[in-house]
């Protein structure tokens, strides 16, 4: 098939400026038919901007675009679609209130006379696409009711339905578990064998070897290099991305035999999502929570934090039983929860770094008559900016202008200020680039060394292995086992526990 490979995309000398930012500087990129071309770079390196140029959302200030050998201009998303360019956006862009099929064909609905919709054709065509993807999904399901992974599949189906032969996937696996990633890769490989070209953006290094043919690296809006994925070691790609060496080692596990138990949970239950979960974390310990998507890890965290009501179970903090029925109770007990969706649950993104850090501790800065002590807030905020190494022009910067890693640090600062000694991190590095990841890891380790008890929920096994002093594994709402941290444990051992279903509970014929 590669014998007749032809060039699908050729971008030359692309320039794009935004007010105050030179986002793309003389960037080039090309895509052949029948290849998966990975585009790598830290957040802010310009990958997404480049792809928005290719998909017609942005117009380049300079440079040439060749599609299928012809030089053209792409005037808008619709024009890109017509050229066979499909994009799967990083932040899912689906309409939750519409059905799966309605989402897939938005803007291209099969119509009858007078603008009437042909709903039957719509659902039939969606079904055909699912069949070709080997995917079992109901065309009439409401998208808002699907899991993130299924929504991701809908996005892919949407791109395929346009008969796109140039597919852009912007972090398609960010929200997928390993089984789903494997499914996705099957689809990608088939598309490749059919002669399509796939531009693949990801932060997960180990995926490169599995799926990519070539890798192009960008840094600070500039083209760095294009290399053969099979020939170049991952560490080389990473150093190209960050311009420096990044550590990649197992943690040293501290001796915690004399440490106090900070948090103890017994018999925690809620419906089928969380079933009789018991565990404890010591001061200074990092307990990793591994498992597939939907295993109930986030649900456990939400129960401990009082975000959802529990059916049963008791929670002890420093040996004393605490009554937690709402997040405020948990915070009072010194438990902080850092949600996987920072923008929705963790931060007031339109407010300043200072205000966000102080958000949970306003009472400290409230003087007589409800007046806020701005000076005190400023001083405290600056202290945390220094201590956690938050990269921001100042404490008055709006949080939305910070990078993902620095936003995460702001959330951490918020809980530290609130005297939280038990911190639950849910996917702490989601959407954070490689360089910043190791900073977050270092921060977690430093916090543990200070005596904080830390729970880390992560879907990335390498992350679990790199961070955890001890690993708890969940499957279908149950804790299926604990594993020691460090180099002693392998990914396979974790996966064995993560897929250990309860035989009696396994319904017949439900498996997909």
């Amino acid at each position, binding site marked *: 098939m590669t014998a007749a490979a032809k060039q699908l995309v050729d971008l030359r000398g692309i320039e794009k400026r935004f007010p105050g930012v030179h986002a793309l500087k003389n960037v080039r990129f090309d895509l052949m038919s029948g290849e998966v071309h990975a585009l790598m770079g830290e957040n802010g390196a310009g990958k997404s901007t480049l792809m928005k140029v290719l998909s017609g*959302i942005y117009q380049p200030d300079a440079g040439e675009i060749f599609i299928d050998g012809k030089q053209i201009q792409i005037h*808008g*998303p*619709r024009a*890109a*679609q017509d050229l066979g360019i499909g*994009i799967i*956006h990083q932040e899912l*862009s*689906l*309409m*939750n*209130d*519409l059905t799966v099929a*309605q989402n897939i064909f*938005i*803007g*291209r*609905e099969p*119509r009858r006379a*007078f*603008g*009437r*919709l042909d*709903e039957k054709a719509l659902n039939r065509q969606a079904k055909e696409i699912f069949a070709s993807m080997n995917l079992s999904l109901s065309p009439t399901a409401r998208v808002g009711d699907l899991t993130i992974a299924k929504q991701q599949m809908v996005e892919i189906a*949407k791109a395929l339905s346009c008969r796109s032969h140039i597919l852009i996937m912007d972090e398609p696996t960010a929200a997928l578990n390993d089984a789903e990633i494997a499914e996705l890769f099957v689809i990608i490989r088939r598309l490749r064998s059919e002669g399509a070209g796939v531009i693949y953006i990801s932060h997960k290094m180990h995926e490169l070897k599995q799926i990519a043919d070539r890798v192009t690296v960008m840094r600070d809006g500039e083209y760095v290099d294009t290399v053969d994925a099979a020939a170049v070691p991952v560490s080389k790609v990473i150093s190209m991305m960050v311009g420096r060496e990044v550590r990649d080692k197992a943690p040293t596990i501290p001796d915690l035999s004399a440490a106090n138990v900070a948090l103890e949970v017994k018999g925690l239950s809620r419906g089928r999502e969380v079933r009789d979960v018991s565990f404890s974390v010591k001061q200074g310990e990092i307990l990793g929570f591994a498992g597939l998507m939907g295993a109930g890890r986030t649900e456990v965290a939400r129960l401990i934090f009082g975000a959802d*009501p*529990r*059916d*049963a*179970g*008791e*929670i002890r903090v420093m040996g004393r*039983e605490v*009554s*937690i*029925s709402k997040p405020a109770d948990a915070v009072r007990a010194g438990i902080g929860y850092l949600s996987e969706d920072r923008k929705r649950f963790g931060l007031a993104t339109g407010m300043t770094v200072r205000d966000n850090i102080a958000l949970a501790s306003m009472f400290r800065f409230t003087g007589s008559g409800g007046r806020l002590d701005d000076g005190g807030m400023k001083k405290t905020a600056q202290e945390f900016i220094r201590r956690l190494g938050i990269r921001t022009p100042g404490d008055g910067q709006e949080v939305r202008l910070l990078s993902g890693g620095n936003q995460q640090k702001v959330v951490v600062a918020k809980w530290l200020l609130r005297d939280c000694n038990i911190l639950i991190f849910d996917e702490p590095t989601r959407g954070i680039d490689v360089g910043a990841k190791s900073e977050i890891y270092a921060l977690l380790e430093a916090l543990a060394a200070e005596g904080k008890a830390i729970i880390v929920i992560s879907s990335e096994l390498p992350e679990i292995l790199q961070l955890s002093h001890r690993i708890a594994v969940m499957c279908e709402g149950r804790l299926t086992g604990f594993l020691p941290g460090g180099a002693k444990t392998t990914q396979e051992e974790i996966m064995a526990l993560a897929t250990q279903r309860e035989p009696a509970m396994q319904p017949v014929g439900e498996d997909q």
Partner: protein
Amino acid sequence: MNDAIAQPAKPKGFLRLIDTGAHQKLLAVASLIALLIGFSIGSPNFMQTSNMIAILQAASVNGVLAVAATLVIITGGIDLSVGTLMTFTAVIAGVTLTSIGVPLPLGIIAAIGAGALSGLISGTLVAKAKIPPFIATLGMMLILKGLSLVISGTRPIYFSDVVGFDQISRGSIIGDLIPALPIPNGVLILFIVAVVVAYILNKTVLGRYCFALGSNEEAVRLSGVNTDRWKMAIYALAGAICGIAGILIASRLNSAQPALGLGYELEAIAAVVIGGTSLSGGRGTINGTIIGALIMAVLTNGLRVMSIAQEWQTVVTGAIIILAVYADQLRRQKAK
């Protein structure tokens, strides 16, 4: 541990059963029936044909306005101008039919056209000029109120000389066929408008984009849809429906009352919300809106027939609106 938060399993299952999507309409209908039964017990004069017809007639204008408002609200917008736009179109009908003296069908078309044009302007302000819908339609609300007064010369325009005009709303085609059921044409028109708009909403591209825009406008735009143009079309359609409401009220009063109209937008929005349409957009039904309008009309009429003091009528109406939306909120939380 806290026992209060542990929920027994059985009621949960039961609630889930009645709270599935299919029961949403049933819930609203049940509320309506509960009100009808309540008032029938409360006053022997409530449940009689003439009073039921009076309720339907009272619901007709507000119902049509609420249908218009539903379209815009589903897109995630709001239209505050529906009330005064109705008045404006009534005045346009008055001027064309009496001062200019065009034939009746042309006058009706002029009114509906004026409504569509005004809606198009609102839509353009929202889509192209990026003015928030609340502000754009607030401005239009005042502009239209002023224009109604200017065009009419600040006095009511009477249709006494326009043969058949009052029959548009007051006449009864159904009553001519079935004398026992003298349902006024105004009510018939409300139901025709409701059926047509429900069809548009569920079966046409325009309707699909209504929901899509309210659900995730950016995603629709990135899918290559010309969102601005569709939004303008939706506001224009809503405006045209306000034009129908204008004809209805003018026919019912046999006059165009230029000072009327302020406050009607809020009642229309109340009917929409009682009907289960989300103010944040993306979901809603015309059935729900019609039931919402009927609930409002039954409530006002029933309290009156029961001779409840007027000041208390207002209190009860406000409380019912809040309760209805709160119940809907509970249902949604349970559904999650």
